[in-house]
């Protein structure tokens, strides 16, 4: 398995995931949505379990947002 972030299409039926992601936030307050997102990120980070992949994902996600490099 490559130790780099995979940005090639990798998700089967992406529409299903996207719909489920939005649905998970339905009816939540902004604060609850933030909680959901935070839990999701921590769960997925642990599942990925590879620091280099996470570092690259953090950098890519933050690009153009004026965050510190």
């Amino acid at each position, binding site marked *: 398995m490559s130790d780099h972030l995979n940005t090639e299409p990798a998700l089967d039926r992406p529409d299903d995931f996207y719909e489920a992601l939005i649905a998970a936030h339905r009816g939540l307050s902004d*604060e609850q949505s*933030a*909680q959901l*997102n*935070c*839990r999701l*990120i*921590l*769960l997925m980070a*642990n599942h990925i379990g590879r620091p280099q992949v996470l570092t690259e994902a953090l950098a890519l996600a933050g690009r153009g947002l004026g965050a510190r490099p």
Partner: protein
Amino acid sequence: MKSYSNPVFDYRPCADQHTGTPARHPIVVIGAGPVGLVTAIDLAVQGQAVVVLDDDQTVSVGSRAVCHAKRTLEILDRLGCGQPVVDRGISWSRGRVFLREREVYGFDLLAEPGHRRPAFVNLQQYHLEEALVARAASLPALDLRWRNRVTGVQAADDGVLLTVETPDGPYQLACDWLVVADGARSPVRHLLGLQSEGRVFHDRFLIADVLMKADYPTERWFWFDPPFHPGQSVLLHRQADNLWRVDFQLGPDADPEEEKKPERVMPRLRAMLGDRDFDLEWVSVYTFQCRRMEAFRHGRMLFAGDAAHQVSPFGARGGNSGIQDADALAWRLVRVVRGEANESVLDAWAQERQAAADENILNSTRSTDFISPKSPIALSFRNAALELAATLPFARRMVNSGRLSTPTVADDSPANTVDADAADTSGFAAPAMRPGAPSVDAPLLSVDGQPQWWLNRIGGEFDLLIFTGSATADATADATAFAARLSALRQVLDEAGLPALRIHRVMPGTSAPAANPGEPDADDALSDALSDADGVLAARCDARPGTVYLLRPDQHVCARWRSLDPQAVAGSMARALGRPLGRAIADARDSTPDSTLDATLIRQATAPPAATQA
């Protein structure tokens, strides 16, 4: 305070106050706090004369350090004053983390048996210091001078001249080496115009020490956002004498003077502790900084403890790291003064402890940022980690209520012979015993079948740990070959002019080991024979018969091999002493450039160095 009154130690005039020219000492330590005292005791138990100057005449006043880590206890054991600290204190290894009204998880910092000391002993700093002062008083080589306040420091290339104020007026004394351990405010550092720089935190915290009889388990309890102190954190520790430390986070806007008033403190405590009886013993409000000096060595001056580096209290990394500074410094200073080590070992010390300070600052800064999140999203992540931690072990490793002090491994120390450079180090699967790490502990049996702790057998000298097969299984030929290798080792060390080395032969099996393998040479060279009855030491060292570990006088691993090679041992010892192998120390010193003092320091020619370097 109701549970404690500070002792008063007498000022005593000394001969140095009446000499025409300043008396000169090999080593002076400034500060009789835990770090200064441990340094001085370590020097004195190794036979090195040392003068300690302290501006006060008592131990620590009020509530300060509480949690003394396993490594600190092991260092105190080596210095002969661990037991009174453990006896007086409260041993603990377990903790619990709470979020709002419920427990999220518990943890155990030392879940395995086979260690003499627990993960931590809680003891008020004044009790620790009293134990250290008592130990210091038993050492003739240690000259502890109360109410001796340093008011002037003049550093030169070959020593330091001090001006000292006493009740009888000022006097001067000179030293070859100065250890500055005068605490976070470090008057001496200020006298020299040296800085300790880093990050200032604005969050205020309230310490309330309460006397109460409570049946809480002896554990570290940490609450995030509890109902009795909403939106903030609270930490509870048990100390000796039925004293409990409560640490309330107050936030950056709290008024320290208002918060210290009993009418503000008592309702906070009442909300937490309910109707039980308690007495308020001590209150203070603090903020903290995470900072360090850029260099811990400035020529002949060595800065240790809070004078050199400061951290937040979360993780108990202040006092414990200061005592590790002392542990790593004393053996080197002793050998530099004796002429057995090159001065460069003090740069190695500074490098080790600067790296340790960075590690401690990193950990304590991360704990602080977890405990007091600086933004709404940081708070959301923190709460997410805490919520997940209630059911998922992976998230418990993200929760950070303080990463509790563990000894820093001196990974990049010049004293180490790294595994890759040493011959025959194939496949060591014992990262806890890698070069630079303090030795693990383990239960062993001595020749007469008495239980012994491994760490109590080593330290103060270089130690060589040799794992062999069982004594009874040794064929005579093997025993003779082993004895011959020990003789060869002794000869190589002698020829290289290297100092004493203690040898420990550790054998497997439950029977008591034979005193020696029956060979006179072996009997002579072998200083210690031990039985690793349960195989714990061998497992922790990933040892096979033939495996060898070389340990520094502060019990840290220098090097390890799969077989005994006298030249390799001598080479690693020489490296730890900053000496090129096969050259006399005087030659080595000639090739070392003179240490350069800071340009900010006042230069003054002092008397030539005492003839201590043979």
